[in-house]
């Protein structure tokens, strides 16, 4: 699996010189499987830049196919869809799997985004590409491009967000963005999902102090992310979904503090990787 980060910011895009290094685009991560299949995790504004990049490939000729995994439908996870160039090219095919009580409800949520009050696209039907939308049943695995995908919900403020585990041969990648655990931490099902991951991407929106002040928003501190990585025996922890007000220097400080916390709590062996736009990893 090859992983690339296109958007690593939480809540709302944060342009400006002080976010240049980590990036100000909202959540979007691409995974290219060993068979060459593309899996896209979340559709924040980073998706626009992934789309422009894909125009040089089969997607530019209307012969592309990809799987999109949607953790939840908050704006910062869907706002890139209307700006994703491959969706305007007939022939491209997208299988979208996400959080929703039914497939039609999930499709309705995406339709709502395109409503003419809000968007000049009016409806998903005006996108040239084919969309096949499926609501995910937690715990029921499916395959995408030879990768086994399993999802489990985490609490996230007033809603839940799906965490995804992607297994390909011996390699495993977990994507757990937008996580606000209860007092007991992750559920047993989520602990099992994280267990032994080669890379655990985890919500690190906040410092512990900011997290304590904003508990109701349903995000994690770097300490909660580190605890999850240590408990899971993960090889790598990827910090992700930085608060919109955090500058590059703030994220540097958050990462350093997270490193120290890992070292002090039995996580010395865990490699800490702060997600940044343009960063690529091979698992």
């Amino acid at each position: 699996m090859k992983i690339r980060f296109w958007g690593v910011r939480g809540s709302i895009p944060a342009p400006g010189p002080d976010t240049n290094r980590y990036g100000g685009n909202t959540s979007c991560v691409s995974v290219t499987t060993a068979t060459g299949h593309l899996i896209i995790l979340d559709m924040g504004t980073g998706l626009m830049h992934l789309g422009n990049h894909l125009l040089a490939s089969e997607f530019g000729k209307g012969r592309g196919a990809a799987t999109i995994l949607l953790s939840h439908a908050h704006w910062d996870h869907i706002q890139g869809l209307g700006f994703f160039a491959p969706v305007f090219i007939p022939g491209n095919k997208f299988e979208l799997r996400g959080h929703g009580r039914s497939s039609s409800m999930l499709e309705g949520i995406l339709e709502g985004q395109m409503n003419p009050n809000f968007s000049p696209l009016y409806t998903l039907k005006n996108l040239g590409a084919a969309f096949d939308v499926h609501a995910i049943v937690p715990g029921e695995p499916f395959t995408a491009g030879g990768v086994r995908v399993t999802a489990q919900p985490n609490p996230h403020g007033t809603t839940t967000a799906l965490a995804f585990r992607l297994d390909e041969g011996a390699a495993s990648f977990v994507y757990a963005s937008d996580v606000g655990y209860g007092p007991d931490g992750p559920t047993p099902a989520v602990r099992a999902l994280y267990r032994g991951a080669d890379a655990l991407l985890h919500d690190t929106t906040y410092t512990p102090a900011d997290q304590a002040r904003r508990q109701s928003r349903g995000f994690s501190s770097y300490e909660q992310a580190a605890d999850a990585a240590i408990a899971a025996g993960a090889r790598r922890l990827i910090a992700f979904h930085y608060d919109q007000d955090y500058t590059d220097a703030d994220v540097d400080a958050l990462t350093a503090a997270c490193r120290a916390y890992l070292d002090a709590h039995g996580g010395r062996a865990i490699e800490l990787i702060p997600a940044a736009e343009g960063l690529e990893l091979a698992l």
Partner: protein
Amino acid sequence: MKVRFWGVRGSIPVPGPSTNRYGGNTSCVEVRPRGAWPIIIDAGTGIRRLGKALMDERFGDGSGTAHILISHTHWDHIQGMPFFSPLYRAGNKLHVFARQRGDTHLQAVFASQTEDPYFPVPLSALEASIEFHELVEGNRFAIDKTLVTCTRLNHPWIAMAYRLDCDGAAVVYCSDTAPFSDILLEHEFISKPPTGEPLPKAIADKLAAMRASLVALCKGADLLIYDTQFTIDEYKLRPHWGHSTPEDAIAIAREAGVKTLCLYHHAPMRSDEAQDAILMAARWSAKSHGDGFNVIAAHEGLELVLGDDDGLAPVVAP
């Protein structure tokens, strides 16, 4: 009055090094009449930082009042609203103005922006009081000592241009609009550029009347802020997207006799260098036509002082 730009980008916010100078936030302009509360035009992502700045004033203790004029409710003009800090402080008063819809009340449009599952805090849970005011073309009304007038634009689902007269100066905000020549954009979805056939007379007349109303709105303005998202070549490919070129803006500025034309609503993929080149070309074009007005391009943080404001008066509201 002071005019300050908090977001100048069209369509979608674009963070990154290539937009550092002009800025990557979507549409938001603050107009501050001398000694009065702010009048905010559009609520793109730029309004987030404006909200933070306002919290250092009376909005921080819940005794602020702001008026927000919305050109239209496309995402790039409202997506910052849920991140506008004064909304989360009890006692603040917000008045939101936008064009009346045939089918949906303005309040319902804004309520659906933040309903489950799109956003965790619904409109009904906000601490500040918000009042929605629906407008129709030609409305004239006062906000404190500022006179506001408006006219419709040529954009899918229809946008409004606003003129604000105060402190002996006038500013016009004209975003988003296509020129008034090739296509009439209203409520139908138009998927392709028009074929280039001459327009039926009724449509051509309607566009001409719309343009005349806009020129009248802009008459003698000190500052005209205008959607210039496209180059001429880009417009040819996408006239149905509802955006103009600098040449269109220059023609309106000339006919209306404005003092300064400000290019605005920059294309998302336009780098700072490309935007510099567009500004230079627009200046050269106006100059070569003998136009006397200035041409500038909006960037985040740009602040202009207009009319009988010495620039030194406190901007803190009464």
